[in-house]
C-alpha cells in the first residue's frame, strides 16, 4: 500500500507574461496544507489557476515563487512518488492496456515480477480485468479513464493528482467513476488532489474543498466536508454544502463562475 504523502504549499505565486500584454497573476500567494491520506478538491472558474497549481505540484512547471513540499521535501521535477490523471486519458494508442500501465513502472527499480503484479493488481482495482491486451481505441471513454487512474496509481505514489479526470465523460459514466474514485481512495489510502468544475463531484469525494477565484488566481475559501462516506447526493446537508460552495464561487468569481459550476 502506498504511503500517503503530506503536501504543503506555501506562498506560491506564478506570473505569466505574453509579449505586448500586461503580466497575468496566474497564482497569487496560495497556501494549502494537504494532510496525509486526505482527499482535497480544488474548484473554481476557468482561469483561476487550479490546473496550473497541479502542474506545479506534478513538477511539469518549475517557474514559480514560494514553496511546494511533499513530506517536508521540496519537490523537484517529476517523480514516481507523484502520479497524475489528465482530463484526456492520455493512454498511448500503440500500447495495450497492461503495457500502458507498465510504462509508469519503467523506472520504478522493481523486479519484473513486482511490476507484473502491480500492473495486474491495479487493473483489477479499476475493474478492467480481462481487458489487459486491449488497445486504447477498443476501450470506452470511461474504461480509458479507469486505465489512466490505474496507471497513475501503479507506481504506488504518495499523492495522486486528478486534473478534471471526468470532465470529458457523459453524466452517467461520470457518476459511476465518482463512486469508483471514492472506493479506490479508501482502498489505497493515498493522498488525492482533484481539480474539477463539478461542485457536486467535489462534495461527493472530498474531505476538504478549496474554492479558487481568478484574476489573480487565489484561494478564497476552504471548506471541510465532514459527511460520512459513502455520501448521498440528495442528503440536505450535502445539498447545503453544495450551495455554500456555489455561493463562494459566485461571489468571488462573478457570473461566469456560477455558469461554469
Amino acid at each position, binding site marked *: 500500500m502506498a504511503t500517503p504523502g503530506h503536501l504543503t504549499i506555501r506562498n506560491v505565486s506564478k506570473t505569466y507574461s505574453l509579449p505586448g500584454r500586461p503580466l497575468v497573476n496566474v497564482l497569487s500567494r496560495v497556501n494549502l496544507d494537504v494532510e496525509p491520506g486526505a482527499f482535497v478538491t480544488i474548484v473554481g472558474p476557468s482561469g483561476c489557476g487550479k490546473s496550473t497549481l497541479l502542474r506545479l505540484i506534478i513538477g511539469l512547471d518549475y517557474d514559480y515563487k514560494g514553496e511546494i513540499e511533499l513530506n517536508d521535501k521540496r519537490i523537484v521535477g517529476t517523480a514516481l512518488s507523484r502520479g497524475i490523471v489528465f482530463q484526456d486519458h492520455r493512454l498511448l494508442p500503440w500500447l495495450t492496456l497492461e503495457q500502458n500501465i507498465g510504462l509508469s513502472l*519503467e523506472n520504478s527499480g522493481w523486479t519484473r515480477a513486482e511490476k507484473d503484479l502491480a500492473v495486474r493488481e491495479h487493473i483489477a482495482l479499476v475493474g478492467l480485468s480481462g481487458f489487459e491486451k486491449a488497445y486504447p481505441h477498443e476501450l470506452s471513454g470511461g474504461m480509458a479513464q479507469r486505465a489512466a487512474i490505474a496507471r497513475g496509481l501503479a507506481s504506488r505514489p504518495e499523492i495522486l493528482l486528478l486534473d478534471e479526470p471526468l470532465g470529458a465523460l457523459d453524466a452517467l459514466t461520470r457518476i459511476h467513476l465518482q463512486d469508483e474514485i471514492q472506493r479506490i481512495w479508501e482502498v489505497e489510502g493515498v493522498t488525492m488532489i482533484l481539480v474539477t468544475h463539478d461542485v457536486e463531484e467535489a462534495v461527493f469525494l472530498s474531505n476538504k474543498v478549496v474554492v479558487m477565484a481568478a484574476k489573480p488566481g487565489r484561494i478564497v475559501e476552504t471548506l471541510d466536508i465532514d459527511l460520512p462516506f459513502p455520501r448521498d447526493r440528495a442528503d440536505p446537508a450535502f445539498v447545503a454544502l453544495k450551495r455554500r460552495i456555489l455561493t463562494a464561487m459566485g461571489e468571488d468569481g462573478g457570473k461566469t463562475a456560477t455558469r461554469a459550476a
Partner: protein
Amino acid sequence: MSHTSDTIEAAAVEAATVDLPAHAEAPGRRGLQLPNLTGFILPFIILVLWQTAATYKWIDPVFLPAPLTVVTAFWKMLTKQKLAFDFLASINIVGQAFIYGSAAALLLGIAAGLSRKVEEFFGPTFDTIRHIPGIAWLPLIVLWLGIGAPAKILVIAKSVFFPVFLNTLQGIRNVEKNYIELAKVLTLTRWQLIRKVILPAAMPSIMVSLRYAAGLAWALVVVAEGLSGLEGLGFLIFRAQGLLLTDQLLVCMVIIGLVGFAIDRSMFLAQKRVLKWKQGYDG
C-alpha cells in the same frame, strides 16, 4: 461494504455494455477471407476487349498481339530466353536500393527529427539534392560506377531516401506534446521516450512513406534499366521495342504491373501489421 459491491456491479455493467468492439481479432480474420472479387471485374473486361480486338483485327497484330500470343511469348522467354534472370536482376536492384535507401533515411530522419541541429546541418544540402531527379543523376553515376547494378542501386536508393527521410522527420516532429509531457511525468529517460513514445508515434507516417517508396523504386528500376545496362525487365522492354517484339514488350509490362501490385499489397499488409493498434485503420 454494500457500497463497494454496488460500484463493482456498476463497473461490471459498464464494462459489459460499453462498446468493446467485437473486431478485436478482425485484422487476422479479414486476411483469411475469400478475396473480394470486385477488383477482378475490370481486368476481365479489359482482357475480353483485348481478345475481341485481336480476333476481329481491329488493330494490327504488330502493335497489339492477341493475349494468347503474349502468353506464348512469356513461355518462350521463360524457357528459351533468360526472363527469370532478368526478372531477378530487377528485383535484386530494387530490393537492395529499397533497403539501403530506407535504412539511411530512417537513420538520418530519426536523427534530424530528434535534433534541430542535425536537421539544420543536412537541410539545405538535402533539399537541393532532392530536387535533382534520380534519372538526372544516372548519367553521372554511370560514368563513375559503370552500367552495372551499383549505379542503378545508388540512383534508386536516392529516390527511396527522400520520401522516407522527410516523413520520418515530420512524423517525429508531429508527436503530440501531451505524450512528451506524459513521458516526463512517468520519468522516462530520453532513450525510453524515443523507443516507447516518439518512434511508435511516428510509425504511421514512416509506414506510409515506405509503401510509397517501395512502389517508386519498382517503377524507377524499369527506367534505369532502360537507360543503361544489358539486363533486367527495363532493358527487355526497350530491346523489345527496338526489335518490334510487341508480344515480349507486353509480357514485360504485365510482369511489371503485377509485381508492382504485389509489392504494394505486401507493404500494405506490413503497414497493417505494424499499425494494428490504430483505430479505424480498416477504413
